[in-house]
């Protein structure tokens, strides 16, 4: 386990709202992006002397571009409805991690410069100048928001702290104060095509390896194609799916489903990444530039459909923004939504009966499901509102016999973030990630103890990586996180599969 330099929160049986403790996380700051990672994103490399005026100008510019920012900075009445809703507040007790506390860091400067009351009666309305100390607070606390939108569910005006955090990060980027983790990754996407900097040859190699593994296991030659022109479906999936556990087991599952459905599909080396960290830094321009790769890949390969793999924020960008950023997609088959989620596809095939499923293959597990925040509160699956909750569970229940949900206040639209979303999945924020995972860990521990849950399924690359890293801090096994399509993969019996081995295995177990 990683070296522990902070106190790991104690899990409680019942959720507890902690008393306010000032400044417990003021020291938490991610590494600042070096100039070479700022410039490819068209941001200045370093803080200039006139950073203050530039920041206020940037705020004014964003206020004119985003209705959300303008309305949300005006509308908060400080009712307190959000104060106990953020996992980072619940895990750190720092009041600047209450959604309204975080918003107020930006709001007090907005009031000072853009409102009558703040200009003439700053003390009365809590308006403040943008000092270096305030900027430090911005950098610290706007990198303690995973943009999970849980607060926006409970706000009577729908104020979404994610919108405020994104704007704040955009302002900081524009004055040369970027975050290393996000900006370095975006630069890598521009240069190589994915977050990991995995070049085309390595990707081809990996996929070949997967084909061999699956054939060894099943005796069936399932293909994992790359850059196949004229394929029907372009699959865009987070690059973690190519090598990380348990992500890669999900990718194996997608391939098996496509194989059984009898559709032709391909990955693209140009768009070998579903993630779009442009969203995390609130930069429309960068989010658009990252999205355009997918449009270009679809055009070059001549596909008819685009399907996204298991990824939370990528699905938000895909479902909610792709048509805006890189549309219109009138060159694709109009009979299918653009884009589709892999779970929409798999659920469709399960309903059609094209998949031969042996649910008992997952009998060694009792599953629960973690709703990823961006899927739950910022997107949809299927034609009905709430399909994003039903379809993953339907698929899990179709391939597993044992499924239990966590407490109702911690799932569906009220789901708790894994603690690592929103561009915070970096080791320099480990304390924040561990503490922010507390509410989810509590809910998980309760179903483990009460219902014998052994595994938690997730449909987001960030969630999977975050849990794998954080679970051991809470005394749980990192391997208990599984991909939903890993469960599908386990249960599918491929046409022509040699499954004599499996019966032998269970006989061995019994003996």
């Amino acid at each position, binding site marked *: 386990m990683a070296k522990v330099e902070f106190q790991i929160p104690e899990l409680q049986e019942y959720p507890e709202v902690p*008393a*306010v403790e000032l400044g417990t996380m003021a020291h938490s700051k991610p590494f600042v992006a070096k100039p070479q990672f700022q410039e490819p994103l068209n941001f200045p490399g370093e803080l200039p002397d006139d950073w203050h005026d530039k920041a206020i100008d940037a705020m004014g510019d964003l*206020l*004119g*571009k*985003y*209705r*959300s920012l*303008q*309305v*949300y900075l*005006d*509308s*908060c*009445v*400080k*009712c*307190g*409805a*959000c*104060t*106990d809703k953020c996992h980072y507040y619940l895990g750190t007790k720092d*009041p600047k991690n*209450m959604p309204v*506390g975080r918003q*107020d860091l930006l709001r007090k400067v907005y009031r000072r410069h853009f*409102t009558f*009351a703040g200009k003439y009666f700053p*003390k*009365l*309305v*809590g308006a403040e100048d943008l000092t270096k100390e305030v900027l430090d607070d911005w950098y610290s606390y706007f990198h303690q928001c995973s943009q999970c*939108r849980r607060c926006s*569910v*409970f*706000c*009577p*005006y*729908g*104020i*979404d702290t994610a919108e405020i955090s994104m704007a704040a990060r955009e302002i900081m980027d524009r004055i040369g104060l970027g975050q290393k983790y996000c900006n370095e990754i975006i630069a890598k996407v521009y240069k190589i095509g994915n977050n990991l900097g995995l070049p085309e040859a390595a990707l081809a190699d990996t996929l070949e390896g997967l084909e061999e593994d699956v054939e060894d296991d099943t005796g069936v030659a399932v293909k994992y194609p790359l850059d196949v022109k004229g394929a029907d479906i372009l699959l865009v999936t987070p690059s973690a799916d190519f090598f990380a556990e348990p992500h890669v087991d999900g990718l194996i599952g997608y391939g098996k489903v496509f194989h059984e459905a009898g559709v032709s599909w391909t990955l693209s080396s140009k768009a070998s990444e579903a993630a779009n960290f442009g969203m995390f830094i609130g930069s*429309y321009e960068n989010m*658009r530039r990252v999205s355009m790769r997918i449009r270009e890949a679809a055009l070059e390969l001549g596909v008819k459909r685009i399907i996204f793999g298991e990824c939370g924020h990528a699905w938000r960008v895909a*479902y*909610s*923004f792709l*048509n*805006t950023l890189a*549309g*219109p997609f009138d060159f694709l088959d109009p009979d299918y*939504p*653009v884009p589709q989620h892999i779970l929409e596809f798999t659920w469709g095939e399960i309903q059609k009966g094209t998949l031969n499923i042996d649910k008992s293959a997952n009998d060694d597990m009792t599953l629960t499901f973690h709703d990823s925040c961006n899927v739950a509160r*910022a997107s*949809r699956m299927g*034609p*009905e*509102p*709430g399909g*994003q909750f039903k379809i993953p569970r339907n698929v899990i229940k179709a391939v597993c016999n044992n499924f239990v949900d966590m407490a109702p206040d911690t799932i569906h*639209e009220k789901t708790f973030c894994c603690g690592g979303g929103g561009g915070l999945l970096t080791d320099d924020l480990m304390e924040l990630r561990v503490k922010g995972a507390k509410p989810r860990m509590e809910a998980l521990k309760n179903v483990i103890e009460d219902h014998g849950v052994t595994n938690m399924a997730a449909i987001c690359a960030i969630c999977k990586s975050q849990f794998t890293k954080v679970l051991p801090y809470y005394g749980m096994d990192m391997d208990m996180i599984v991909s939903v399509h890993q469960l599908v993969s386990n249960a599918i019996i491929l046409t022509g599969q040699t499954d004599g081995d499996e019966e032998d295995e269970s006989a061995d177990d019994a003996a």
Partner: protein
Amino acid sequence: MSFLTVAFAALFYAATVLLVVGLVRRIALYWKTPAPLKIPTTPAPVTQGGVVLRMIREVAFFESLFKSTKWTWLFGWVFHMALFAVLFRHLRYFQEPVWGPVVWVGPLFKYLAFAMIIGLLGLWARRLFVDRVRYISAPSDHLMLLLLLLIGVSGAMTTFVAHTDVVAVKAFFRALMTFSLSDETNLPTDPLMVVHLLSVAILMIIFPISKLLHAPGVFFSPTRNQIDNPREQRHISDWARKLEQ
């Protein structure tokens, strides 16, 4: 005309202008500012009709607040609904003849002043005693509650404790509205009424420059007023379209 009459006439003319101009300008700003991305908090309605229903549930029943905290919901909802009812009853002081429904609800609605006061006291107690809410409160947040309580308590007292000459007050406002103030329409020099009217005028003046902007704001909130149909319909703002050229 008495000094009080002239002063309050000037005050209410100014307050009305500031309220109307301020609100119109703010609403125009919200209207003109584009929402470049689809960001409804999901699950969200997939039709325009569904969005209208969501908004009605939000403004009439405070649906999201109900999900959050029952005490704040209870006090907040009671205060707002009582305020609207009391305001409705106040139409009687401006109309001649008074509209039927306003007459009918009058005897009942006057007691809702107490509901309004209880709601405000509950909200203030939360602001004072819950450490998280105390932390986020600026002086203006406390003063806003004080102002609303002044309005509620002084108004209730003119009805239930020391009757004001409402006929004279009504004559004043009728004359104010028709620009026909005269010696016949002097405002009664009743301290309770002076406090009541003064605090109402202050509320009108600060409305467009304070957090009371939540009232128009909620209707412009993209997380609540957008249709969840990004795959079916391309949504793009003018400034974003320029990036495509």
